[in-house]
């Protein structure tokens, strides 16, 4: 790295600020964006106002609202059954409407204009601009914003992902993913099975890669050309594709071929973007152990020069005592 740790920290603070990114992408004034983000962040922290609701905020530069955004006002809007709120540059509510405030809508709305949109829920905020999520953070601290010994360089990304598996995935220690543990069926979750693993890994890398300038996590359903996780480093970009293997509660089923699909996908990203200097395929395997051991291969020639060997994490569903007795019988 050419910048000193002090310089790197300063740079990271000033460019990963969501308001700075909005200002950069939309060409808006930084102070206006900063005030807007601060106001929405305040709503996200005030979980009393939101409850379990999600709100989609749409920024309309040209509009003029009257009432200021406050947790109380947002609670009133939610009570009226509205979840889509248009706001102006003075942080006032212009209008509210009914609808499902999902990531696809947030992306589409931000592409019109173009403008900024934000999905706000208790403890979490995702900002979109020009059709893509540009910042995603937890407004309330959680386990992943944790220990000093979890922090690693992007050069140790494999170890960082191992840490994530050990502290978050293994034994469902931080992420619940089994729908039926005995039958090894995965949950589908609100946004799909992949999102369960993707989101958890994204947070982990965002918090624990100490020398990454930024980490972007894409949202499902927003197009096939978008990478799952992109890590911006001082020398370029890394891409991570997240997949799962096995069966999900909705009947989704993925086997060995999925590994190859993931590798092909990464090859496409790496060919398209010469500034991507590395690719990783991470798979969470919910298939039975014998399948995990016997059917985890892929053709030799399908790994791109800049892509690492696929990382397959086996999702254990049995307790250590059951595993031990099975092994003893064998």
């Amino acid at each position, binding site marked *: 790295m*050419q*910048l*000193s740790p*002090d*310089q790197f*920290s*300063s*740079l990271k*603070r*000033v*460019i*990963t600020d969501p308001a*700075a*990114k909005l*200002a*950069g*992408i939309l*060409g808006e004034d*930084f102070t206006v964006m900063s005030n807007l983000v601060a106001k929405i962040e305040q709503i996200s922290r005030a979980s009393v106002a939101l409850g379990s609701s999600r709100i989609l905020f749409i920024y309309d530069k040209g509009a003029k609202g009257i009432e200021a955004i406050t947790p109380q006002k947002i609670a009133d809007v939610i009570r009226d059954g509205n979840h889509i709120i248009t706001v102006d540059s003075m942080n006032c509510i212009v209008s509210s409407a009914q609808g499902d405030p999902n990531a696809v809508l947030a992306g589409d709305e931000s592409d019109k204009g173009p403008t900024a949109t934000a999905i706000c829920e208790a403890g979490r905020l995702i900002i979109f*601009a*020009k*059709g*893509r999520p*540009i910042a995603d953070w937890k407004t309330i601290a959680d386990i992943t914003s944790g220990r000093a010994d979890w922090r690693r360089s992007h050069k140790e990304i494999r170890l960082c992902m191992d840490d994530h598996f050990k502290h978050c995935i293994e034994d469902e220690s931080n992420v619940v993913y089994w729908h039926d543990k005995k039958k090894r069926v995965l949950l589908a979750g609100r946004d799909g099975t992949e999102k369960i693993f993707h989101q958890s890994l994204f947070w982990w890398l965002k918090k624990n890669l100490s020398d990454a*300038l*930024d980490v*972007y996590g894409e949202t499902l359903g927003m197009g096939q050309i978008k990478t799952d996780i*992109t890590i*911006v480093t*001082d020398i*370029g*970009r890394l891409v991570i594709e997240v997949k799962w293997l096995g069966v999900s509660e909705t009947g989704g089923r993925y086997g060995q071929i999925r590994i190859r699909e993931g590798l092909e996908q990464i090859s496409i990203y790496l060919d398209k973007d010469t*500034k991507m200097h590395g690719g990783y395929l991470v798979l969470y395997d919910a298939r039975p152990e014998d399948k995990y051991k016997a059917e985890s291969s892929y053709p030799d020639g399908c790994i791109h020069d800049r892509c690492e060997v696929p990382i397959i994490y086996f999702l254990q569903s049995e307790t250590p005592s059951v595993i031990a007795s099975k092994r003893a019988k064998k």
Partner: protein
Amino acid sequence: MSSATLRMGDVLLALKEAGKAQINPTRIQLQKFIYLTDVLGQIVGRPKPNNGHKTYKNGPYDPRIQNAVDALAFRGVARIAGVWRTPGGHLATQYALAKGGLVVLEKIEGNEDFFAKVWLAQLIGNELRRPGRGWARIVNLVYAEPTYVSTRPSGWGESLDFDNGLKTSSAFLIAAMRRVIESANIQSEVSGEWIVNRFFAYLDDFDANYAILRKEA
């Protein structure tokens, strides 16, 4: 246009921006303002001046800037607004635009060679006028500039290669800034205004968090 004329134009633009902030800048402040204009010149494709800024006892220094200031004062284009002796025994001078300077400035602002510099000087002037900054902090801000931070330990007289992206420099910093925005949205072209704004935010942050620690150390 000769480098001496260019430097005269740079000084007049700096004096104009200082005037907007109701400041009569010192020689050191003028040196720093022009240094920042040259550093950020790379975002509009302006090459670094040959044999320009070097490390010196009061930060980056280009003797041609001082020559330009003296020449402008001698010709009545700039005026000396104050002179005093510093505690160290040196003469300190403050400058301002003279009436004749306004006419010259008008011509400079209409000159194609200066379009980009006029625009940059305005952006830098705007940043300096933001709350919490001001011309009084310009020396501290320049001391936080990455090229100067990395070159300063080598001693006086070292050339400041702020446009060399292969070294620790502002060019490297700006490239990293662009990369973050590009990664968020490939279609976005990062504006010069945004880079200048974030560049100053960086200088502020570095000065506030690390410069004091170094002084204490």
